[in-house]
């Protein structure tokens, strides 16, 4: 964040100065396409420097060899073959990487479905039930309050609540509903999904809300006038028109959850596999090419999911 601002600060005076002189001297010759390039240029440079070039490095390194203490810049598919070790030999059982991705996708799907459900209705409420713009604004800001503290603190705050001797368990025991503490509340898939939903629902709310407020109210009136029930209006008018927001929100949530290993680690008691966790373990053991190979695999799978989703909705067209 800081660095991209730096680059903008450093780049913009030159650009501004450059464009001013250009305007003064040869204003007539500045073509619109040149101006577009100028406008898109800084972002392009940021993208090139911080995304494309590092990505190329990651792909290159993923094909290197390594030993205990250094990278060996010779072509080797070891990072990949090691990763898929036993995937055929162990059939019908899943190999490590298969199990890991199955678990990651499962968590991803659960978190996606729940954040979508909650996010959709929160956005619906904000867009259609809150009439005044001021209130809409105020309530949206309210949704950001959890973001005032750090991600890690929000996550750790669940632990004293859900633990064996935590608030929830001792509350339930006192009311006599249970006589043994519920073990699955913490360090389980349940707690991982709970924390991820808590962290990321907001990323669903904002784009869906954004799509919904732009729906022409007269369309809803027309549907009502034509005799549609509330449910029919929802399914045939609102959901199709909110689709871009739904897809954008889904992309946010899915990409974050696919790469997450800290939340899954802390809330899962380090006992639940995650694609990101494999990369972390490899990096910590100084096995960079293997880590890079896993990163490339993760990227490819995430990319596949996103491509499938953008097949459903053409985001560019809808925006």
């Amino acid at each position, binding site marked *: 964040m800081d660095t991209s601002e730096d680059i903008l600060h450093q780049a913009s005076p030159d650009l501004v100065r450059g464009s001013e002189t250009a305007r003064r001297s040869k204003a007539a010759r500045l073509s619109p396409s040149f101006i577009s390039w100028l406008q898109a240029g800084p972002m392009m440079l*940021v993208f090139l420097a911080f995304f494309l070039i590092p990505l190329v490095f990651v792909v290159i390194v993923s094909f290197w060899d390594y030993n205990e203490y250094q990278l060996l810049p010779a072509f080797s598919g070891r990072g990949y073959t090691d990763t898929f070790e036993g995937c055929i030999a162990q059939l019908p059982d899943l190999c490590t990487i298969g199990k890991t991705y199955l678990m990651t996708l499962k968590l991803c799907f659960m978190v996606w479905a729940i954040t979508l459900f909650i996010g959709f209705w929160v956005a619906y409420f904000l867009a259609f039930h809150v009439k005044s713009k001021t209130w809409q604004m105020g309530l949206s800001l309210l949704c950001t309050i959890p973001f005032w503290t750090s991600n*890690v603190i929000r996550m750790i705050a669940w632990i004293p609540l859900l633990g*064996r001797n935590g608030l929830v368990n001792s509350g339930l025991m006192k009311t006599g509903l249970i006589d043994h503490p519920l073990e699955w509340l913490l360090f389980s898939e349940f707690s991982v999904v709970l924390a991820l939903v808590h962290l990321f629902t907001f990323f669903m709310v904002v784009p869906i809300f954004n799509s919904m407020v732009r729906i022409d109210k007269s369309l809803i009136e027309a549907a009502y006038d034509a005799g549609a029930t509330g449910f029919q209006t929802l399914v045939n008018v609102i959901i199709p028109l909110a689709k871009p927001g739904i897809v954008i929100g889904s992309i946010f949530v899915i990409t974050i959850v696919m790469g997450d290993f800290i939340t899954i680690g802390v809330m899962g008691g380090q006992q639940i596999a995650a694609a990101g*966790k494999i990369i972390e373990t490899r990096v*910590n053991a100084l096995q960079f090419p293997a880590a890079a190979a896993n990163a490339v695999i993760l990227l490819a799978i995430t990319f596949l999911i996103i491509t499938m989703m953008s097949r459903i909705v053409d985001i560019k067209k809808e925006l």
Partner: protein
Amino acid sequence: MSETTRTTGVSRRTLLKGTAGLAGLAAGSGAITGFPYVKSADAKVLRYLGTAVNEGDDISKQCLKDTGIKIEYITATTDDVTKRVMTQPNSFDVLDTEYFSLKKLVPSGNILALDAKKIKEFDNITPVFTKGETPGGKKIGGQGTAPWKVLYLEGKDSKKFATSATEFVTLIPTVYNADTLGIRPDLIKRPISSWSELLNPEFKGKASILNIPSIGIMDAAMVVEASGKYKYADKGNMTKEEIDLTMKVMIEAKKAGQFRAFWKDFNESVNLMASGETVIQSMWSPAVTKVRSMGIPCTFQPLKEGYRSWASGFCVSKGVSGAKLEWAYEFVNWFLSGYAGAYLNRQGYYSAVLSTAKAHMEPYEWAYWMEGKPAEKDIKAPDGSLLEKAGAVRDGGSYEDRMGAVACWNAVMDENDYMVRKWNEFIAA
């Protein structure tokens, strides 16, 4: 947990630093002039890379007072320290690291062997490091990367460990300890005497193990051996078959729900134990002390199969020379001169030069920490907080008893790569 956070913070910061450099290049403005302070040319400053274990404020303050050397701490986790030595060898002067890392660090050529003759107290370093026995003559278990196997190099620029003493020392030892299982005696309510108890179904859902693969697998091996399933030639250097066998036992236990969670840093282990989520787990001595200082009973249980030990020390970056190298020697000499040793002993660790540390400790402190005698007075931590009331006895007893019962040392295996893959399989199971 906080250490995990710190780790990501550090790597993110390093990342930002790197990208900031790139940003400067991309913007065509050349180097970014950064730091807001101006260093005076004469100030003796050493950049000290290490884990938080030795990096006390009290130590750096006392060092500045005694020697005029200003220590700038660069704190990272064990894994990140090693990573940094490999990738940014010029970003530090003095390195505080563990002996088992040497198998990676020395071949990388990024560290400088120190000259034993320039270390004043070198001959007084405990025989634990030089001979593999306690001062009382007890032979210490040498499985794993035992310090005496990697203490010397064949020559000044050699990348080979020498089998007998030379004057070129890889790491000057500073601190070490013997680790075992921590237990909650109030919740277990019966004596525990073997590593095999970690997988006892009695503690189903209430056990935990360290999630640092190279160390976790050694604790696992202690358990496997204790339960009589297998006897390893060297727990610190397993064959592929031995790794398979060990992980199979652990995977079965995990699937049966034996483990509540795995932990990776100090605070996580303290929280698990203090909250009662676990009642038996691999642990570090100061973490047990921390749980106890919260008023919760916790024992660092000596076990009949012995301890898993670790040790760390100082070496210097290859990039250090001239006056700076002299300061580095001065600093290492100061560190062994007693103040720091006493400070470490009072935290429940052990210092490398016992005689100088003893001179800096009260006799009753020495008797409690090192001789295993009941405390004559209340035992206090270096910061003055109460650790134990008068009458308490240290878990495991004296230095002789604890270090003499060490069975193996933290290690990096030859089959490390395979082991890491197996560990990922264990987590995914």
